[in-house]
């Protein structure tokens, strides 16, 4: 009797783990569609996709660090830094577009390199190292702008107004349309696809997953674990700064603290992604899917006029639910073996 019960419970967990996220998505879409006519429209869906594009980029970076059994909490701050730097390069220094795109990416590489130095060389646990970096980078970006957001022809503290403007070509990255979809959506789709191919279908992906799965066995199979971890954090930094550039182009100004609120959303997206189709590990498609679930949920709640200040409750709730499913499943899986 007791056995039968537990196997029903097991099956339920198994089912939740495999299809829970998809079931949740279908349910949310169905629910909001019945409530609002504006929800289930092409326009609204491209809107949702555009709104999740930035979070998805951040989340892809977090995915890479989680694949190697690390964690990057500094992505939000890195994004903020890249946002204000890309804006300032145009507004303050009037730099050409290619520099405006390259320099923030280099900053992302630098943050990733410092992260991995702290973690791999010095040996600080991932969570604590990137937590510290989160504060340091956040402080850096506020110091850099002296606390102000950056916009076209802004007055400068040294007197006069800023010489530059955000160029049309730059704004197109965030606001333009291409083949019926917004440009940020294309960027996101390309990045998701590229990450998916790299992680699941190349030997680099194999090395990343194996390093995360069992660093010691990977070492004894000839993998330079330190190098692999270093790469993962650098990739995470690059994704974060791409998100920052996209944010500047989308909003048309260098908002201060742009990334901070997105960090939790990105982490939640990755963990929702764990359980998509029972992958049981961080994966690129799952991360995209997780970002979509959260994006759709927030979009629907906006249509329902839920105040924005309550959104964090929803985001946190989704994260807890995703973690609960993942860890309960992991416990079951390990207790059996």
């Amino acid at each position, binding site marked *: 009797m007791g056995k039968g019960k537990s196997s029903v419970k097991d099956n339920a967990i198994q089912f939740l783990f495999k299809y829970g996220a998809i079931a949740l998505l279908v349910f949310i879409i169905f629910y909001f569609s019945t409530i609002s006519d504006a929800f289930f429209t092409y326009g609204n869906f491209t809107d949702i996709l555009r709104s999740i594009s930035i979070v998805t980029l951040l989340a892809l970076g977090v995915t890479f660090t989680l694949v190697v059994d690390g964690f990057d909490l500094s992505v939000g701050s890195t994004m903020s830094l890249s946002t204000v730097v890309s804006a300032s390069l145009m507004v303050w220094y009037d730099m050409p577009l290619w520099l405006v795109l390259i320099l923030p990416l280099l900053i992302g590489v630098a943050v990733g390199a410092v992260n991995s130095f702290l973690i791999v060389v010095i040996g600080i646990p991932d969570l604590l190292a990137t937590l510290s970096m989160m504060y340091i980078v956040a402080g850096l970006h506020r110091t850099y702008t002296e606390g102000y957001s950056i916009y076209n022809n802004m007055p400068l503290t040294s007197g006069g107004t800023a010489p530059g403007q955000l160029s049309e070509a730059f704004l197109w990255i965030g606001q333009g349309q291409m083949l019926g979809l917004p440009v940020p959506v294309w960027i996101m789709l390309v990045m998701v696809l590229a990450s998916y191919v790299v992680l699941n279908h190349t030997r680099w992906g*194999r090395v990343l997953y194996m390093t995360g799965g069992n660093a010691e066995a990977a070492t*004894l199979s000839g993998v330079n674990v330190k190098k692999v971890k270093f790469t993962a954090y650098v990739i995470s930094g690059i994704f974060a700064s791409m998100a920052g550039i996209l944010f500047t182009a989308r909003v048309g100004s260098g908002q201060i603290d742009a990334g901070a609120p997105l960090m939790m959303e990105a982490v939640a997206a990755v963990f929702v992604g764990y359980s998509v189709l029972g992958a049981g590990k961080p994966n690129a498609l799952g991360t995209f899917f997780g970002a979509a679930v959260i994006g759709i949920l927030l979009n629907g709640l906006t249509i329902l006029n839920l105040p924005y200040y309550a959104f964090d409750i929803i985001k946190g709730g989704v994260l807890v639910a995703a973690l609960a499913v993942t860890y309960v499943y992991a416990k079951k899986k390990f207790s059996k073996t």
Partner: protein
Amino acid sequence: MAGIGKNFGPVTALQGAEFHLEKGEVHAILGVNGAGKSTLIKILSGVYQQDEGTIHLDGSAIRLESPKAAKEQGIYCVYQEVDTAIVAELTVAENILLDTFSGKGNLFVSKQKINKRAYSALLELQAETIDVQQKAASLTLAEKQMVLIARALVHSAKIIIFDEPTAPLSIHESEKLYAVISKLKAQGVGCVFISHRLPEVFEISDRITVMREGTLVKTYDTAEADQDGVIEAMLGAALSHELEPRAHDIGTALLEVDHLSDGQKLKDLSLTVAVGEVVGVVGLVGAGKTELAKALFGGTPLTAGTIKLAGNAAKIKHPADAIKAGMALIPEERRKEGLFVQESLEANASFPNLKKFSKRLLMDRKAEKRFADEIIERLRIKTGSTETPLVHLSGGNQQKVAIGKWISLDSALYLFDEPTKGVDIGAKVDIFKLIRQLAESGKGCLYFSSEIHEAIGISDRILVMYNGQIVKELSRQEATQERILLYASGGKEELGERQELGERQRNSVSV
């Protein structure tokens, strides 16, 4: 202790084990790995409970439900890993009196009183040079042992169990410990002494109990026992060679190791392996076999020595270099070091040689599957499919995967570190056959093992390790279990043995 039985799941660790300890006696327990020594003393110290049998102390039956209960009866244990029993951040005195804090008693502890009691305990052990007020973290291993013994003394222990106490000690420190043990003995404390080192057992014990396969074989009076007899009792009737020696040509030197040291465990090791040769490296647990395997494979840095592969000096700083040079390591802890147990058999098998399975950028899943099927067939691995995560495979089948994954690289030299550990008989035979096959096809194999009879069966030549050094090389004809065990436990044959004992006695007088 009489008729003690203990099962762990389906595994029987002890069956009808017996042990008698007199007051004021030093009683050694000997046995090969897995004989049940540790289980027995864990039952005696209350860590495990026996499934059957009784324990009598001073004539009355006792039941030891927990380590605390054992301590209340005056049974203390000095574990091999002293650090697990010491609180590094507390002072020496606090550590010695640690058990008094957790019980009832005064809420406030007087520093002075503690220090005084701790000092008098150390004085009894002639270890008063240890400052009772310093932090335990700064002590040497030997001093920490003294602290643990002092802790037992403070509670007027009746029985103190020493679990391989000399394993981490230098000779001088060991001598000091022997002196302490004789002092305890004089005070009427019963000492249980567990060690792999035969000479010291013969030196300090009054009686020797030999265990094998979970039961008592025989108890000797040390004065009447001889090393050969004890060793034979440990091994059981000399087991016949299960594996037929195969005559095949042995080629030129494949691996040459010269005066290798790692600055920690390994001291000045030299060895060679020829093409087509299986060389057994035998030693007891802690002799440094795993360290040697790891050092050869670039897992730990070397401080001295050179490694030559096929005549060329090899610079091996990382396992990746070793793999490139043509080495393969099957590590001892396969789940921890050898395999990715959550991943599929396929992914595990292709991992050391990913380039072979990804001609351009993308992984060639079909080639991976073909290779997985090939090693399943060749090593007779029992599994549902190539997609099955390895956690679902038995230990023996997991081990086969850990070996099979190297086959795609066609390495020249294979290092097997305890490949039969936790592996059933059927899989063992398959693994032996595979090692033989590899040797026949011109590969070199180093076989690290503490299972002496298995090593004799598989090897063309045997190197015996003791305390981080190779102490003896034996050909297949010369190798017998008795001789290997003698060398592996630090003994020497005939003339040499007497000399060593003579030296020891001189030393112990000087302490």
